[in-house]
């Protein structure tokens, strides 16, 4: 590996010289590539915002205007008129919130049982939890749709959240976390007379907050972004989630590009804030499943 050490000093200097030239050429290439990449990646984002404030004449002009000449808020007002955006925000928040809370709760309990409680057929039961991860939701979506609408839960919050109240993913992640919990702390708690319930909620959960937060973010975003299930289980604009509302905005009779983009911008704000300001925090949540 350390070939440089054996080179004579002059040769080394020459080599460093050409390396420097090569490096500056390389630098230029790197910046060009990065610049092109940034433009490509950021352009749709830019255009969503620019288009959202353009008037209809600018948007339908050909070639398309890339800079808004005048700024209008009409598109936002229009978007809110065509779809009940506020209500759909609420629907998305309620749905994703309930799913997140429920998954945290069921996963905490299950993971606790796997790590801290005596259990017969532990491996088999854990295998069941892992197996649920292998089933793509789309493979069971038809019976779920038939079953839940049969129960009269179509177009309700129950219909939106019920199938997602537990998760093999959350349980698996938390089990990993719980297993790293120091045995001494656990024994100390027991000597202090803490029962399982108290140990779980007073000691274990508070000390695992980072893992829980990471899982919560992941679950919340997944639920927030759902499309197929809310599309078929909801019917009215009042019960649809933001994602379905956006899609319907596009097919609305009054829809034009400005209106559509305004809807996108409005729907985007929370996640955008999350990405721009809480990036590092989010990354932990996203890569929770990755590599330990």
């Amino acid at each position, binding site marked *: 590996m350390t070939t440089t050490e054996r080179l004579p000093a002059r040769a080394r200097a020459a080599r460093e010289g050409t390396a420097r030239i090569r490096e500056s050429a390389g630098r230029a290439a790197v910046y060009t590539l990065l610049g092109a990449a940034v433009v490509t990646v950021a352009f749709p984002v830019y255009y969503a915002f620019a288009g959202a404030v353009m008037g209809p004449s600018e948007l*339908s002009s050909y070639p398309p205007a890339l800079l808004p000449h005048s700024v209008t808020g009409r598109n936002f007002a229009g978007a809110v008129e065509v779809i009940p955006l506020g209500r759909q925000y609420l629907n998305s928040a309620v749905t994703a919130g309930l799913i997140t809370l429920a998954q945290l709760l069921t996963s905490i309990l299950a993971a606790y049982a796997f790590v801290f409680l005596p259990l017969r057929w532990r491996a088999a039961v854990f295998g069941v939890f892992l197996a649920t991860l292998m089933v793509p939701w789309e493979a069971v979506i038809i019976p779920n749709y038939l079953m839940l609408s049969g129960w009269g839960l179509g177009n309700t919050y129950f219909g939106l959240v019920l199938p997602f109240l537990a998760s093999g993913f959350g349980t698996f992640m938390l089990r990993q976390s719980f297993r790293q919990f120091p045995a001494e702390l656990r024994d100390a708690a027991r000597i202090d007379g803490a029962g399982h319930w108290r140990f779980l909620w007073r000691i274990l959960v508070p000390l695992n907050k980072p893992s829980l937060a990471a899982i919560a973010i992941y679950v919340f975003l997944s639920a927030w972004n759902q499309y197929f299930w809310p599309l078929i289980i909801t019917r009215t604009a009042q019960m649809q989630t933001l994602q379905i509302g956006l899609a319907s905005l596009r097919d609305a*009779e009054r829809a034009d590009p400005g209106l559509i983009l305004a809807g996108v911008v409005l729907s985007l704000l929370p996640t955008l804030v999350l990405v721009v300001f809480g990036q590092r925090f989010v990354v932990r949540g996203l890569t929770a499943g990755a590599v330990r």
Partner: protein
Amino acid sequence: MSKWSLRLAAGLAAAALALTACSSSSSGDSSSGDSSSGGSAPGADALDQTQGVTTVTFWHAMTGQNATVLTSLVNEFNAAHRGKIEVKPLFQGTYDDVIAKYKASVQQKGTPSLVQVYDIGTRFMIDSRQTVPAQAFADKDGYKLDDIEPGIRNYYTVGGKLAAMPFNSSMPLLYLDADAFKEAGLDPAKPPRTLAELGEAAKKLTKKDANGQTVRYGFGASVYGWFVEELIAESGTLYCDQDNGRAEKADKVLFDSVQGAQTVQWWADLVKGGYAANTGRVTADAQAAFKAGKVAMHLESTGVLRGYTEAAKFTVATAPYPRLTADDQGGPVIGGASLWIDGPGHSAAEQRASWEFAKFLTEPAQQAVWHTGTGYFPVNRKALDDPKDKEWLAKYPQFQTAIDELHATKPTPATAGCLLGVMPQARKGVETAIEQTISGAKTAQQALGDAAKDLQPALDSYNASVG
């Protein structure tokens, strides 16, 4: 079970139903059987003899402005029948959602009292055997249906009986950018009548810039099977056999006829020649192209007229839907939806109340409100005499085209439109055929032939399942 015992059982069921229909006024337990084919409807006394409020659950698919107008009509009706009938409108999503939901409700024996179903669901609704024909009520009461536009009645008449009460109807129109016409030296008052003329006009209307870029296409419509159905009807030929499924249940589609192939080939050739914009299946994209002035001629329903006149910066003109050749004897088929009264599982009083409401909605005054508020075609002829309606027509003179078009259409099997249990899939098949022809993968004749062949198993199994 032998044939005999089946017939016996059917006979018994029919007898039992006849009994319940005559005797009971409010029993809601006749949840099976076939009261629709019998076509017997309870008389007005069923409602008169019932104590308290009879509730009508009404499933519909109206949104936005349409829903607002519908709600106001419902409120008006409820106010007039206070203490007697209460209509509860329940929005169920898109027309497709309504059908899906209705299917589930049949399985769960919880159908609504009244349901709004799109035109192409007509065959399915009859086959579901859950409804009482509107004709049966009209006959019972001696109520004249003559004021309902004959062209509209024609669509919903099956086996000589009006199966459902027409409610919201629309027709296809040829929309024109009048400014573009003048610019190209064409007269928007003399719009193209045949596909050949339309093609010629499209060539003149197509405009390119200095770089050879097309800035305006002569023609553009979304890849929507309905437009082909309408063009076939305009040619006076059939879309499916058995007189468009009017004589008997259709067991074969005929859209791969010479006329069908010519229509689709014409469309594809215009796209391939660069005279028509292909905006794909998404309706909103084609509409956006017309509104933005990117397309000078455009096929759409009457329903979008108001939106177009408000959004477009050019003068929007309308023309009758085009024909294949000048001497075609056909005309447009009515689109939209109708109201179906459910029989099994609903008391006689409830059925009566549904009928009263459906009747109310189709009366001239209500249809005038509906027509002017939504842009749908008035299903009642007399609605056009309403002052409110006249005022509206003065504001949107382009709508007169649709009225003239419908009144000029002779009710024939061709203009009645095809009734098919698998009509939605048939439409999808035609859309695929259009795409294949445009891409050049197949000729129109091949593509439509393949679509018909692909559809046959679904059609057979549908017909087998309804016996």
